[in-house]
């Protein structure tokens, strides 16, 4: 049995009932976009191939997606460790089957977050030069968001408790502030930001608009951004491996 529709629908229902999920993946990105994007005086100035409102919209959608991926994947890991895993081990569901449903659920909320922010953006003056740029950004958000699924998985395995999901979401917010995701950083803070987990991801997401040009001046080369993404993916994989070992020792 690979994909259980009932399981998927129940998982979606469950997350929709969860106030934290709704707050971090829907309310917060939309609110931040409206605050810093749509209602700012500079909203309609150019940010490259789109206006500033669009730029902020991309950033917030990316944040919402990363939060969705990391929190849902960390919940998945910690609930397996806490006894539910033994319950489903007594059924024909394979590990692949479980992972598939959880991944699709996380991607569904990632997509939901992106769609919600884009909808609000489109109706409040976010503009891009070409239609395809909207699709490109959305694709980058969803594909890149998988990295944070890995992050969430690592956190959930390593810490194995109900608070693991909260830890994951709060970490993402933290990464956001220091990673040039919310407000544009400059000077030393910007230099440091290049090394933080969300920097590469969000820079890549914004690429169809900025092509690397930074709000505070200067620009990034593509390889710098890609390197950040690759390095952090590898580090999250190490975290996950550490988490697997830790969860095995617990048994």
């Amino acid at each position, binding site marked *: *049995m690979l994909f*259980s*529709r*009932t*399981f998927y629908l*129940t998982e979606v*229902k*469950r997350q929709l*009932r*969860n106030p934290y999920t709704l707050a971090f993946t829907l309310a917060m990105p939309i609110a931040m976009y409206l605050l810093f994007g749509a209602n700012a005086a500079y909203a309609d100035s150019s940010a490259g191939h789109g206006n500033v409102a669009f730029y902020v919209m991309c950033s917030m959608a990316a944040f919402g997606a990363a939060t969705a991926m990391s929190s849902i994947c960390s919940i998945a890991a910690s*609930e397996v460790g*806490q*006894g*539910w*895993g*033994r*319950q*489903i*081990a*007594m*059924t*024909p*569901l394979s590990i692949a*089957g479980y992972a598939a449903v959880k991944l699709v659920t996380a991607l569904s909320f990632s997509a939901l977050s992106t769609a919600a922010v884009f909808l609000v953006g489109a109706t409040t003056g976010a503009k891009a030069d070409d239609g395809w740029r909207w699709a490109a950004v959305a694709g980058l958000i969803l594909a890149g968001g998988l990295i944070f699924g890995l992050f969430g998985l690592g956190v959930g395995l390593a810490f194995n408790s109900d608070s693991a999901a909260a830890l994951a979401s709060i970490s993402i917010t933290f990464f956001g502030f220091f990673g040039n995701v919310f407000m544009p950083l400059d000077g030393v803070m910007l230099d440091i930001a290049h090394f933080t987990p969300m920097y590469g991801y969000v820079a890549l997401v914004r690429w169809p608009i900025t092509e690397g040009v930074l709000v505070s001046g200067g620009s990034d080369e593509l390889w710098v951004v890609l390197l950040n993404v690759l390095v952090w993916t590898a580090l999250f994989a190490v975290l996950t491996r550490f988490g697997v070992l830790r969860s095995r020792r617990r*048994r």
Partner: protein
Amino acid sequence: MNTRSTPTEPTASRATQDAPAIEITGLAKGFGGGERRVRAVAGVDLTVGRGEIVALLGPNGAGKTTTIDMLLGLSDPDEGAVEVLGQSPRQAVASGRLSALLQTGGLLSDLTVAETVDVIASFHGARARVTEVMERTGLAPIAKRKVSKCSGGEQQRIKFALALLPDPDVLVLDEPTTGMDVVARRSFWEAMAEEARAGRTIVFATHYLEEAEQFAQRTVVMNRGKIVADGATAELRAALGGRTVTATLPGPVNTVTVGAILDALKQGGLLDGLQATDMQIDASGIMRVRTARSDALAAKLLELGAHDLEIVAPTLETAFTALTQDAGE
């Protein structure tokens, strides 16, 4: 009997016709490394036939839960083999023929009762059975309640429902009535009696000796990773032999008077064959003797002036205590 190599896919006939419900041979498993290695299971052989009802008894640390984990395919043995209905445990679980009520299994607190049952049913392809199973386990009234709001006994009932969903041939229960009050426990065992009548093989681990006595035809006692007794529950009591005679000895209780009484008993041959653990005399003069010759001993004690006589048939509890103590010597 068979070669114990890694089991390959069994032929259908063996799996469905002649294989016993459970076959465990030479099972062993340890934890920890080096000097601190603990042999939780140290050589267990057990065969359970179809339709049997077996109680698994043992003190904490006896190895029951570790054995059950291996029986269900949740962990791998260091040595030996487990087969359920001629298949590996994982195969038996995947085909819905083996299921369990786990003590250490958990439920998701933010799902409702109905959602939990529905999701697990979907894994088994048994969603058609959800209503029936929820009726049988009394979950229909609390179907919409979140699991976190359910009492311990209600959560046990949910786990029981999950175990029944695949309509299994072999049902394994690990401390199934934990957290249940007397009424809930009684209705649980009534439901289980129904399952037994339907021909299911049932193995249950329990601390409640009354449950083993009332419900299991056969009792397996484990201690320190080994099986120390395995037989018909009724025989286990008889095998211990004898009844316990309790009486209060007469007069002042000191080494002289007690010695005199013991001599009198010895002369009548009434203390022959008794072990040191079979007799206790406490400071207030209460004498307790476990003997096959309870009638004769009682008569002699009364003759010697003892009073407040009591003769009690051994319960499974005394058999259990004796077995686990003896094995530890």
